[in-house]
């Protein structure tokens, strides 16, 4: 987590801060660090790497939806846009388009352009409220998908780009299972920490205020529209990092990556986990990746045929949103609350 404090921070202050971190985080942190010691390459690269990446993109949706009350289906488009920018300005097998610039220009540039794109989309989307947002962002995501599929000059149309690889920094192959695991984990933890941190900073608090009561926020002297658009920009950085990592993982980016199905997948992930808390995005991503990887085997074992995967995902999603709008986190909290309740009186504790 980013530590910003007065210069007078003392060691006791630091010790208190460390002590205030819930023990579950310690267990999880240590577990994440030592996973490469016993996990297979497949688990590290495919399962965990993919979880961290999808979690990051879903996290950007959680930030907008959970704190800002704006459920955007365009987050996958932002992620894909960043991936495309890396492919276009960096290196790929499509040498006719890719510029081959060095990574330390390409990555900041890609993120910068993603933020610009998201700001424009956000500016359009926040002109309407509530439920319109989801429809408009869905339409924009679809427009981006069709555009990438049709445009050959810049986006190389249907094929997209392949052989988009991470730079070989410090002589490490960052697509190696262990390196990629730590790379994605680093960004997932950073993104998670940043969102958690900002949620208590003026910007994040104001965003939650806008979510709860935009009219009152305006009456307090806040520019509600500007805050909403800024939230899109902030979320785009997270989605963009996720998109670049996603592009590196599969070494390619194509219209299929930013299709409507993927946009809805991100929504499913964020909602299954729970939009209330940043950790929900990663819980959702982990479940989604597990399902996506192993559901086919389970389905075949049940005699249903592997192609019924969408049905399984859809049913799971439907059940969760039908019974617990706050996702698995909401279910967990309900469970905790009912445990604490006295079985005889029904009162608390």
């Amino acid at each position: 987590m980013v530590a910003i404090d007065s210069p007078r921070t003392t060691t006791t202050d630091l010790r208190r801060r460390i002590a205030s971190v819930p023990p579950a985080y310690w267990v999880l942190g240590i577990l994440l660090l030592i996973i490469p010691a016993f996990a297979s390459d497949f688990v590290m690269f495919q399962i965990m790497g993919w979880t961290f990446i999808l979690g990051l993109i879903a996290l950007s949706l959680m930030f907008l939806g959970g704190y800002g009350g704006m459920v955007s289906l365009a987050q996958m488009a932002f992620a894909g846009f960043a991936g495309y920018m890396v492919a276009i300005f960096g290196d790929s097998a499509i040498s006719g388009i890719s510029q081959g610039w060095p990574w330390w220009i390409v990555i900041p540039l890609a993120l910068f352009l993603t933020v610009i794109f998201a700001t424009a989309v956000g500016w359009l989307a926040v002109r309407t409220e509530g439920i319109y947002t989801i429809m408009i962002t869905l339409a924009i995501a679809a427009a981006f998908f069709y555009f990438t599929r049709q445009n050959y000059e810049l986006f190389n149309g249907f094929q997209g780009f392949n052989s988009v690889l991470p730079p070989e920094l410090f002589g490490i192959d960052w697509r190696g299972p262990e390196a990629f695991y730590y790379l994605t984990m680093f960004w997932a933890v950073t993104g998670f920490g940043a969102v958690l941190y900002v949620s208590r900073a003026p910007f994040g608090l104001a965003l939650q205020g806008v979510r709860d009561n935009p009219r009152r926020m305006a009456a307090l002297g806040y520019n509600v529209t500007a805050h909403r658009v800024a939230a899109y920009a902030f979320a785009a950085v997270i989605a963009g990092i996720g998109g670049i990592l996603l592009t590196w993982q599969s070494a390619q980016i194509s219209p299929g990556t930013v299709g409507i199905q993927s946009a809805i997948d991100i929504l499913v992930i964020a909602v299954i986990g729970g939009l209330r808390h940043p950790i929900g995005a990663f819980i959702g991503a982990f479940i989604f990746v597990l399902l996506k990887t192993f559901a086919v085997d389970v389905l075949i074992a049940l005699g249903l045929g592997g192609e019924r995967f969408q049905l399984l995902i859809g049913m799971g999603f439907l059940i969760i949103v039908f019974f617990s709008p706050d996702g698995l986190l909401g279910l967990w909290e309900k469970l905790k609350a009912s445990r604490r309740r006295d079985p005889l009186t029904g009162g608390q504790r």
Partner: protein
Amino acid sequence: MRLFATRHPVWAAIIAVVAAILLWMIFAVWPDGLEDVIGRKKVFLNALFNGITLGGLYFLVASGFTLIFGLMRNVNLAHGSLYLLGGYVGYFAAEATGYWLLAFPVAFVVVGFFGILLQVLVFRRMEGEDLRQTLVTIGISIVVADLMLWGFGGDFYNITPPQWLSGPMDTFFVTAVKSSGEPVFMKYPMVRIVIFAASVVVGVAMWLALNKTRIGMMIRAGVDDRDMLSATGARIQIVFVGVFAFGAGLAGIAGVVGGTFQSIAPGEDIRFLLASLVVVIVGGMGSIPGAALGALLIGLAEQFGSVYFPTYAVVLTFLIMVVVLAFRPQGLLGRA
């Protein structure tokens, strides 16, 4: 109309000029110079007709969506699934009975019944929670899409219109003049014209029903003020179910039309959901005339786009949406 002209003289003038140019392009015999620039008149007229008739289809889908949203603020993102379901139901009804016309009432009833289930089992339980409605209907559309893929496979289904409707129809539009001085008249598929006429009838009937009947007044009162409607003693839940069933039934009919015009296949549900979204965003949420205008614009944009700039035809419709959102977020005919 006169009110609009006095209030927005510039816009009225622009619209009048565009209409005049359009009329001239439709009825006049094109001079050679024009044909050199933008191609043959036949192509233009075909795009125009295809655009208008496609607009009719979009209107059928989107009017149900906008009606449901307008009255109940229910966001039904499973609307595309209702369309696709209607297409499949219509196909099997027509195949089994041999009567194309029978496909329409069957699709209307079956999909309308499905709509009743949605309203009673889903929407009534989460009134006012639009986010939850959205999520649940997305979930339903995922599940239904896969169930239909399971049941009907990934093939394209084509509903064949009966003999008397297939084949071209002569119109009175001149596309060119032969060297002998004899005018060439345009031919256009009969079925498209008939279906378009039907969708106009549906639209006008809906408008009349909403504006001239007691139940229509009740529904419109409900759009303006939910509490007032309950206060009049109207059995609001029954009205809701009825409107939902009707809107869903329209989507089902649209499915049959779509299956006759084009074809139905997995993925068409999302395509038509998106089309409905764009149409109602452009036209204005909850407005039937808005849906008609939006449908016409989007249908025309798609067809002209595919003729004159084929690469970006799909993007063009979204561009229209973006422009409308930027300048009139409530939609062209929507209320602020």
